[in-house]
């Protein structure tokens, strides 16, 4: 099961590389004529999907009564991080080719990118502390630390909204999912209760 999930989760990246590997004329690329922009969108989309999927584990566990699914949450979170790293690397390496002055300026000057960067930076400690050792070492603090995901996910969705030029359809879907997932957690605090079997 775990291996199957790994294959599933890594396949978008492999698919991207496979298509990119077919590149021999930059102009007539499989990844559109502008592959760098394509990779940007592609990795961004998969990053946000995995983030939302990670947040969906707790509700799914309770709704479809499959408690074991929690086992896979860490893996999903790490794949989210993986795609964020690819997304960021694409920005730094392929798009701006280590032009640090411009990169820094863009991160500071463009609120959309600031939000994305904030989300990525916040995700880093979560990824680093995802090992068994760190979970043990941090104890209770680990859970508190990993609540930062409730900040990261909205930042990512805001970033998604701001980066899109005109067609807000996909970001709206992401926002809807985010609201449902956060709402599910907030609802009991606001006095609603779910009947559990």
């Amino acid at each position, binding site marked *: 099961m775990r291996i199957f999930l790994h294959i599933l989760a890594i396949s978008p990246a492999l698919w991207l590389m496979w298509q990119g590997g077919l590149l021999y004329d930059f102009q*007539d690329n499989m990844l559109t*004529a502008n592959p760098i922009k394509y990779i940007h969108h*592609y990795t961004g989309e998969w990053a946000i999907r995995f983030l939302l999927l990670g947040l969906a584990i707790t509700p799914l566990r309770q709704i479809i009564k499959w408690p074991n699914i929690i086992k896979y949450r860490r893996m999903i979170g790490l794949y989210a991080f993986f795609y964020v790293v690819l997304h960021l690397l694409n920005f730094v390496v392929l*798009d701006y080719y280590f032009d640090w002055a*411009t990169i820094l300026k863009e991160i500071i*000057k*463009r609120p959309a990118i600031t939000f994305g960067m904030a989300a990525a930076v916040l995700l880093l400690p979560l990824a680093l502390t995802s090992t068994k050792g760190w979970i043990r070492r941090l104890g209770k603090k680990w859970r508190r630390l990993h609540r930062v995901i409730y900040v990261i996910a909205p930042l990512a969705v805001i970033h998604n909204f701001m980066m899109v030029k*005109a067609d807000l359809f996909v970001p709206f879907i992401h926002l809807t999912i985010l609201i449902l997932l956060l709402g599910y957690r907030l609802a009991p605090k606001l006095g609603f209760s779910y009947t559990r079997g």
Partner: protein
Amino acid sequence: MLFKFLKSSDVKTCEITPEKTYMNRRIFMQDSARIGAGAASLAAFGGGLIGASPAMAAGRKLENITRSGRYDTDERQTSYKAVTSYNNFYEFGTGKEDPARYAHRLNVRPWTVKVDGHVDHPGDYDLDDLIRPHALEERIYRMRCVEAWSMVIPWVGIPLSDMIKRLSPTSKAKYIRFETLVDKKQMPGQKRRVIDWPYAEGLRMDEAMNPLTLMAVGLYGETLPNQNGAPLRLVVPWKYGFKGIKSIVRISFVSRKPNTSWQGLAAHEYGFYANVNPAVDHPRWTQANERRIGEFRRRDTLMFNGYGDEVAHMYAGMNLKKYY
């Protein structure tokens, strides 16, 4: 914007066929289609194979094109495939590959253009009647998209000024306004209101009369592929690509500055003038540089996209930060 699965077979056929070969083949196919039914069905079969990638939709070869070279750039031209498969034409969807995929639904013949407003010769013109009186010219221009990528495209068309002179606007005409076709059946992207259809664009009269401004009917020596704005589109090389309105059905001579589609969508991001200007950033990204399609490193963006000699005088004394 969900990613799409391309069959590798779709594209490979095109990639291994050098542009010239397949153009010849296509012209040959059209000729044979004219010879007889048997040959025609053979050609249709060939067309089906080659047409596997919609970017390959056949254009008709245009005759009697003059080439003065006066305004041409000698930079490397962007491949036919890239020019015809990477498009912003939201009428067919907001993905870059949507236009090439869906534009075959557009029927470009016959095509009528309504001319109205402050003009001596208003009316509903057949496309041929608008174009034929003028000599077709090839113009190899840089095209700079507002999204910070660029291409070099050999357009075929007529100077807009020639057309305007013949239509003879009155002194009340200060601006010219263009409109794209609205037809949900032919343009599936219009089923959603991403833009308040019809797409509309405009130019100041002196911009419209500038010798660089082109009404294009073709590229690479052939009629325009639908995804590039067939059968008639505007090309204004010193402005961002979105000014180049496609599949035009209406040309109006007006006294007041018309509202444009992208202004309607986000006025603080897209202005009426939309001159290429490396010093005025888009609020969400820098316009100081761009990626030329086919190149890896970004290059510096040129003021007026490098056409300052021809156009800068029109904006003398204007604050281009305010009138972006």
